[in-house]
């Protein structure tokens, strides 16, 4: 019994919570919610005497109801994945690639590099590939720098790569005796290359044929290589080379055709010989001919390449400036060339011998900014600079302010009251875009101030205030200290110990803020903002007027406290009983180089102080802060600095970077009872227990007439529909008590069509509408008026 009572009460509650929103509804702003979603069905009723406009209107309403049953959901994007090695721990100041990356990079680091065997004369020989970061034994680091003093870097973080250091290596891991290819044992040398049984290797995916080694050199055939016959060509560029006739192991006739199939050249070439085709600009080398007695070619092994360049000798050094047979560039590139290590013995490839493809641009070093990369030939792999370790920064903005009022602050972390402590204050506002970032005495604020009042005419004290932003009351507050020597209100008294000498000496005041992203950065990731005030010749206890003031903000880490220095000067030159100092950067109202100084490590590792006030690009400092657009901001006497949430590092990869997936939005279907359309003549007694949307006026739709309490057909003025307009109206308790009918009725069919368009744009035109009925003259906000 007890259980039944509880169940009954729960059922009643469930019913009430389901029904209540419907009962409470009744305005157009509740449509389509008042149609009974999610639990009740509803019908859309079209008059049996319809116009073509009603067909279009039905589609509008159908769309509207479908859209209302969905919600937009977002899927966050995904960062691009790296195949290979990726580190975000590199020092942005002078960090070498090899500080994080192994050298060389092997196939187990990056799967794009191969390690396996090649086959030569039915035997297999081991090899492996590497990417080297110090190919020739580097004396120059491959490093990251933001040196402001180097053209090409200019304060922007760059990856600095030097010519001749980055390379690819193909390493033989097993001895291969090329001279053993023939019984004589004399081929495979530079004097007598082995064309019949060359060693096929793939450097960076491109096939080369080694035909001779010795004296620290190798001779390779370069270009397209393969086996041709009368129907199967070897293709190079737009040309196809066929072998149409030949004599076994002796000669072959080759035919060169263009992309249209036209013969442009033909020639007979002896085995192991080559000929040039001037017509095609090619050199064709025949390395082997297999033919029948009747001259039919079974297969001719050809190498086809640029004229004069299919056979080249590579030594222990290379550059990218040679031409013809001295063109040692890797095919298809302009900055990569081929050189070798080893190959000392004639006709013998020893284990450990290497063929190198080295990056040797004529301009060195080269600079790569975030998002750029150095790609190996054939896109075999990249050395890429992705960006910062984390892209989370708090942006600090320093802005001169005048005429501010400070309110009494109960305590740091407390709130202000409505009493003004001091007014007519000038100074600097320090604002962060991340709340809680500026720590004042350990409490995080979004804004802090260093403010200056007029000279006290009685004591000659020069008041300086440290203010904080009271976000609750939207005003700036200062903790009052009756002795004027408290923590948050400071005075530079002309006679106080703040003055180093008296008379004629300078008086100083200093204050430390801590910058901690959102107030939550670890101590190691915090930066320190040091405000230093110096009043020149303010030391006289009796009456000497202070003529100038130098404000100096420094921002940096515990290791480098002066990474940024902002020079705010008093532009009026006075600090009197009627006038507080008024600030600007350095000595003019325009941008000046000396407005801002930063510390910047140069490309030799030396720290220099640089004047960056007129730099037109962002400048990275040695503390990992980023000075944003100095020139433009300095001109407005503003300084903007991005402070990283965590200590700044560089993120780089070696390998392949995939494609990042962008964030997307999709429509998620919310299960509701899906509407059914009916003609008014079809509506049954059962249908009249549901909520309705009726389309068409009472002249053409009998259900509309009934809902409006009219006798069908009710046309013209009798319809109650505004002339030359449409009516959208919620009728309560029709077709049954507790049910609703939404009437969409026009004076003419075109007016009904317009009203349907309004329904279709429900989210922008009707949502929030508090009336139960509106007159529609156009499908715009202005075309809808409550009636």
């Amino acid at each position, binding site marked *: 019994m007890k259980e039944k009572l509880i169940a009954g009460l729960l059922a009643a509650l469930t019913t009430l919570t389901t029904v209540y929103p419907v009962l409470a509804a009744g305005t157009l702003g509740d449509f389509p919610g008042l149609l009974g979603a999610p639990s009740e069905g509803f019908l859309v009723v*079209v008059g*049996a005497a319809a116009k073509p406009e009603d*067909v279009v209107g*039905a*589609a509008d309403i159908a769309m509207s109801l479908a859209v209302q049953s969905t919600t937009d959901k977002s899927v966050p994007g995904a960062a691009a994945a790296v195949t290979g090695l990726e580190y975000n721990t590199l020092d942005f100041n002078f960090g070498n690639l090899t500080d994080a990356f192994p050298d060389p990079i092997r196939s187990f680091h990056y799967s794009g590099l191969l390690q396996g065997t090649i086959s030569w004369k039915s035997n297999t020989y081991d090899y492996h590939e590497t990417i080297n970061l110090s190919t020739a034994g580097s004396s120059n680091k491959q490093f990251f720098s933001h040196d402001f003093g180097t053209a090409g870097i200019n304060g922007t973080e760059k990856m600095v790569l030097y010519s001749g250091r980055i390379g690819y290596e193909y390493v033989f891991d097993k001895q291969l005796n090329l001279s053993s290819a023939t019984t004589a044992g004399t081929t495979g040398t530079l004097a007598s290359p082995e064309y019949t049984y060359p060693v096929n290797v793939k450097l960076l995916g491109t096939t080369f044929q080694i035909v001779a080694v010795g004296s620290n050199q190798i001779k390779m055939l370069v270009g397209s290589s393969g086996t041709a016959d009368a129907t199967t060509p070897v293709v190079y560029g737009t040309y196809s080379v066929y072998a149409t006739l030949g004599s076994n192991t002796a000669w072959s006739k080759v035919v060169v055709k263009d992309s249209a199939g036209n013969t442009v050249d033909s020639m007979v070439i002896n085995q192991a010989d080559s000929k040039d085709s001037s017509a095609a600009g090619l050199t064709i080398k025949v390395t082997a001919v297999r033919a029948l007695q009747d001259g039919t070619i079974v297969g001719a092994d050809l190498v086809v390449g640029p004229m004069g360049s299919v056979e080249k000798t590579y030594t222990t050094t290379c550059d990218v400036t040679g031409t013809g047979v001295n063109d040692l560039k890797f095919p298809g590139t302009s900055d990569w060339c081929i050189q070798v290590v080893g190959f000392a013995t004639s006709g013998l490839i020893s284990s450990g011998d290497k063929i190198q493809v080295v990056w040797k641009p004529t301009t060195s070093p080269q600079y790569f900014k975030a998002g750029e990369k150095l790609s190996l030939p054939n896109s075999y792999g990249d050395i890429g600079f992705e960006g910062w370790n984390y892209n989370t920064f708090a942006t600090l903005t320093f802005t001169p302010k005048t005429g501010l009022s400070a309110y009494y602050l109960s305590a740091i972390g407390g709130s202000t009251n409505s009493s003004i402590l001091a007014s007519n204050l000038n100074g600097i506002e320090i604002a962060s875009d991340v709340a809680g970032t500026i720590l004042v005495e350990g409490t995080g604020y979004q804004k802090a101030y260093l403010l200056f009042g007029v000279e006290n005419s009685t004591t000659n004290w020069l008041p300086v205030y440290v203010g904080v932003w009271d976000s609750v009351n939207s005003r700036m507050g200062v903790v009052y200290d009756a002795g004027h020597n408290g923590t948050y209100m400071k005075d530079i008294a002309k006679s106080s110990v703040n003055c180093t000498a008296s008379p004629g000496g300078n008086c100083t005041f200093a204050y430390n803020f801590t910058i901690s992203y959102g107030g939550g950065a670890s101590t190691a990731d915090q930066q320190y903002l040091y405000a230093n005030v110096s009043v020149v010749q303010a030391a006289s206890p009796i009456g000497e007027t202070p003529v100038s003031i130098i404000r100096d903000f420094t921002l940096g880490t515990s290791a480098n406290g002066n990474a940024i220095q902002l020079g705010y000067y008093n532009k009026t030159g006075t600090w009197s009983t009627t006038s507080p100092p008024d600030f600007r950067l350095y000595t003019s109202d325009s941008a000046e180089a000396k407005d801002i100084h930063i510390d910047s490590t140069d490309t030799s590792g030396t720290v220099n102080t640089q004047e960056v006030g007129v730099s037109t690009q962002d400048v990275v400092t040695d503390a990992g802060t980023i000075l944003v657009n100095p020139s433009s901001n300095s001109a407005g006497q503003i300084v903007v600095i991005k402070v990283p949430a965590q200590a700044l590092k560089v993120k780089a990869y070696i390998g392949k970077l995939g494609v990042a997936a962008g964030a997307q939005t999709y*429509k998620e279907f919310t*299960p509701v*009872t*899906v509407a059914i359309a009916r*003609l008014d003549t079809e509506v049954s007694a059962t249908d009249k227990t549901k909520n309705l949307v009726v389309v068409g006026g009472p002249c053409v739709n009998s259900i509309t007439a009934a809902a409006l309490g009219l006798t069908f057909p009710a046309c013209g003025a009798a319809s109650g529909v505004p002339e030359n307009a449409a009516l959208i109206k919620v009728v309560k308790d029709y077709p049954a008590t507790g049910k609703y009918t939404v009437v969409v009725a026009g004076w003419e069919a075109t007016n009904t069509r317009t009203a349907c368009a309004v329904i279709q744009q429900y989210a922008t035109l009707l949502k929030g509408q508090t009336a139960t009925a509106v007159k529609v003259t156009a499908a715009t906000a202005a075309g809808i008026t409550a009636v």
Partner: protein
Amino acid sequence: MKIKITRRRIIFLVLLILSILLIATIFPNIPWPVYSVNYYGATMGFRANLRDAKNVPVYPNEEIVYREIMNPLVENITIAFKPGTEQENAYDAVETFEIVNKLAIAFSKTLGYIPSFNVINVTSYDGLQGKIRNPIITLVNPNYSNETSVRLDDHVIFITGKNSTDSKEQLKNFDLAVIKFLMVALEIRINH
């Protein structure tokens, strides 16, 4: 306590068990009319019995029509109809609502977006040019048709209801063709 089982009781029990087995076997196979289905948690009602619509022919086949309409490349769907008498217009309006509303829901559920729909009136059913991104659904009013079918022809889907002298029959045929098209698009299967 001793239970006495009489012969009459045994017969009664046997008959009862046989009846239960008979009902359990036959009941699920009775072709009750189906007017609504559960579509991803929503009760989706239809204007006619889905069992009747199941047999409407689809050309060239259901798979091809499904791939034509529920294609992620689709950006805009055009509904074409030929204005006629008030009754014909009313039929077209009702079927247009059914197609647009249910297709839009199907797109949002299965593909995560809703393509745009536009409705055009045509003077002829010939020469319509659909595209893979913009298929056309043509409502061929029963007054112009001698078959009930769904037919795809080069990105144009013709939905036709067979003509009849009985207006209710006309509308029902039109309904069945539209429902068959929606069954294909929404992958609604009626087993028997």
